[in-house]
């Protein structure tokens, strides 16, 4: 799997994690009144776990990093916007170039970075 493909799959994983986090928050149902199909939560969890296994197998170090960062910040990957990390809002060193050829992390907070056009 190329780094680009890995990164794209990693934020698909993060989207699934954010979705599960959202619907399992009791405030969510209380504030919106929206009904959640409990059986389908299991379906999303299965999708999430399948994707996680694939990513873990392809690059266990980056996958473990994602899980650790998620525990610390609630997310493991973030976008670079205007040469700034959108997790800690610290400007990245000018030597850091936009890339999808390798996995880059923020030198300040350690989160995995992605440049999206």
């Amino acid at each position, binding site marked *: 799997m190329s780094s680009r493909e890995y990164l794209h799959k990693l934020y698909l994983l993060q*989207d699934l994690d954010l979705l599960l986090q959202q619907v399992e928050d009791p405030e969510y149902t209380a504030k919106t*009144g929206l009904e959640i199909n409990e059986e389908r939560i299991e379906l999303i969890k299965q999708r999430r776990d399948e994707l996680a296994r694939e990513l873990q197998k392809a690059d266990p170090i980056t996958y473990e990093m994602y899980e650790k960062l998620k525990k610390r910040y609630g997310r493991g990957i973030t976008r670079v*916007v205007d040469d700034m990390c959108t997790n800690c809002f610290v400007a990245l060193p000018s030597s850091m170039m936009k890339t999808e050829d390798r996995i880059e992390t923020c030198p300040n907070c350690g989160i995995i970075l992605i440049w*999206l*056009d």
Partner: protein
Amino acid sequence: MIKDLLREDRVVLDMKAKTKEEALRELVDVLNLSEDKKEILFKALMQREVLGSTGIGKGIAIPHSRSIVVDNITLVVGVSKEGVEFDSLDGKPVHLFFMLIATPNDPSMKYLTALGSIARISRSIAHEGEIRTDFSSPKELIDYILEHADEQ
């Protein structure tokens, strides 16, 4: 807060979509994102729909998600004169869409508060009976929404 999220350039007055997928793509298109970002957002919105339709009934839907592709909490409003099949709770087609997207690191309270406000506005609009779809300008639609926000 809803007032701050409503923008005339984030309104579709006459949606062409006939299906849920088309409706979500049409709403996402308003955000002028790259094709990559559009696809990411579309997938996130569809994943949420798997858990139960955000069509709350009475012709209104509130598709929503957190997503890495936006820089700020973002609302797009769409109106469909003909209605869109959206697997709504009451099986009725949807005429009014509120699509809310928050960044992954937006404080939960801000996102949920906005979602809650939209749900209350939706219920207030639904309470009136038939939903208006005859807006001649984005401003007219925004004013209509804000009238219902004022009622709370």
